[in-house]
């Protein structure tokens, strides 16, 4: 095992370990991230080889880069001593490669002049390859961590690492810009932001050649990010208007075209998730979604709001044909409870996912009365992650489950139902109590 240094972005620090663990697991190796501290963007991990390092980082959204660690110090003198002591065997390996130096500084920076001096201080490496700024064979990176006290800008770093760059993340290759909603031709009020939908797909282990299903597709946010990772996306939504889009140039299919992933796209269906038309032996590999909680879109399923009034309507005829069998028939919808929908979602996932397949969805919770038991559970699904994104008075949580085989004995329960928490929308608009954070 060798030491590698991961440098994280300053975004959703509590999602970091879930993302990297999931990516390592996707490539069939385990990764010990127990040393991670959310306040610290630098983390040293142990890996077999560069290939593992490359595999966990290339799809990552929350990390920036990974480096083969050559040395560490709290000042440059210490750093140089450490590099010479622990990495001198590496100097020869890369002696003739073209190279360049990079700097990464957290909470501080150095002038170009100071940087050149630092680069020169590494003269003992005795590299003979040419410097190549455009396409070097090796990139050596000096990573500095500064500590800022109050308003004063620190000018001396607290920690310095030196390493050989192995892989920059998808984030550093501009994936966030690419999928930015502002640049997407078809979006709506329910479109999910690019960064977190990419993270969701990573933790859900969306992957090449596998079917990813979003039962609440909307404008297709999760489908397009899933396709970015090679998945074959299918979606459904109860609202045909969302699936149809705004025009021939502004719809879900066009979005796939925009991202060059149309070749993977399967279809979207108008469907009430609770009356699902996928044949029961059709294997769905991953499910990712943001169920409608009724904040922007009311939660509705097919059915009559008032069953007594609707009784007998199935016999109603227009022009000698049963009304409900006509092309222009619009099925009525009735309100539905979130707790029931989540039950449906978990049972569906439990019956359709293959063993080890993952379900990832977002669930809103009010901060003043959230308790872990409100997270729904299913006996065949193990809850892997419960990751909170905090807003002012409420949070949403990314819940990620894995389907287990028969030997797994979980518990089926639904705290929302037990505590009679009915409607998130109501709570949202009524305002959460003053006790909320």
């Amino acid at each position: 095992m060798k030491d590698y240094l991961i440098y994280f972005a300053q975004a959703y620090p509590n999602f970091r370990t879930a993302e990297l663990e999931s990516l390592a697991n996707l490539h069939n190796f385990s990764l010990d991230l127990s040393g991670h501290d959310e306040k610290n963007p630098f983390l040293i991990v142990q890996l077999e080889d560069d290939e593992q390092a490359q595999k966990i980082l290339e799809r990552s959204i929350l990390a920036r880069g990974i480096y083969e660690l050559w040395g560490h110090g709290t000042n440059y003198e210490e750093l140089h001593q450490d590099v010479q002591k622990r990495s001198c065997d590496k100097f020869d390996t890369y002696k003739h490669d073209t190279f360049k130096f990079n700097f990464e500084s957290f909470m501080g920076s150095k002038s170009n002049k100071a940087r050149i001096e630092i680069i020169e201080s590494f003269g003992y490496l005795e590299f003979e390859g040419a410097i190549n700024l455009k396409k070097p064979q090796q990139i050596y990176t000096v990573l500095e961590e500064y500590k800022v006290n109050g308003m004063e800008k620190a000018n001396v770093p607290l920690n310095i690492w030196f390493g050989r760059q192995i892989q920059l993340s998808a984030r550093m290759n501009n994936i966030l810009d690419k999928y930015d909603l502002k640049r997407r031709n078809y979006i709506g009020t329910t479109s999910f932001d690019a960064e977190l939908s990419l993270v969701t797909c990573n933790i859900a282990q969306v992957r090449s050649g596998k079917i990813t299903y979003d039962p609440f597709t909307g404008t297709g946010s999760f489908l397009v990010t899933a396709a970015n990772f090679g998945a074959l996306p299918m979606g459904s939504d109860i609202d045909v208007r969302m699936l149809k889009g705004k025009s021939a140039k502004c719809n879900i299919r066009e979005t796939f075209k925009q991202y060059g992933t149309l070749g993977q796209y399967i279809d979207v269906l108008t469907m009430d998730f609770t009356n699902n038309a996928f044949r029961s032996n059709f294997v769905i590999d991953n499910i990712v979604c943001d169920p409608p909680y009724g904040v922007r879109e009311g939660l509705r399923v097919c059915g009559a709001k008032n069953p007594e009034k609707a009784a007998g309507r199935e016999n109603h005829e227009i022009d000698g044909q049963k009304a409900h069998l006509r092309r222009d028939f619009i099925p009525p919808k009735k309100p539905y409870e979130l707790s029931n929908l989540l039950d449906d979602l978990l049972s569906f996932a439990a019956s359709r996912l293959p063993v080890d397949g993952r379900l990832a969805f977002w669930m809103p919770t009010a901060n003043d009365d959230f308790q872990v038991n409100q997270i729904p559970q299913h006996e065949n699904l193990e809850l892997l992650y419960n990751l909170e994104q905090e807003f002012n008075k409420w949070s949403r949580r990314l819940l990620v489950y894995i389907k287990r085989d028969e030997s797994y004995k979980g518990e089926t329960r639904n705290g929302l139902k037990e505590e009679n928490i009915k409607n998130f929308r109501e709570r949202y608009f009524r305002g959460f109590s003053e006790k909320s954070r």
Partner: protein
Amino acid sequence: MKFLTTNFVQCAVKSCHSSLTSFPLQYEECQLVQQEQDYNPEFIVHMLERLDWNAIVQVAKDLGNESLPANKPEDLDPIMEDSQAVLRDLHTLLVETQIVEGKMVCKNCGHIYYIKNSIPNFLLPPHLAN
């Protein structure tokens, strides 16, 4: 709706799920178009293992194509030349054939679903929902 998708959907009515006749649906009065799409042989290979071939043959027949072999093509490899022609044909059939308008009828309960503007609609009337 791609021809491919006909292989994944059945009648949405719960009491039909256990019926062997609710899949595949019967396709009637369908209007088809060929919509050109980049040829992606890996996609076809991935899909092939998930297909219920009997249903493919049956739906193709509904749509007026009786030329499909009775058995699922097997061991296709995008690198092999003799696989190429089969994969191309499957691509044309499964991916490029779009059902723009049409009816899907459940052979068990007789409910009619419509495909409108290429999007199939599986919403149920109240007496069939839940």
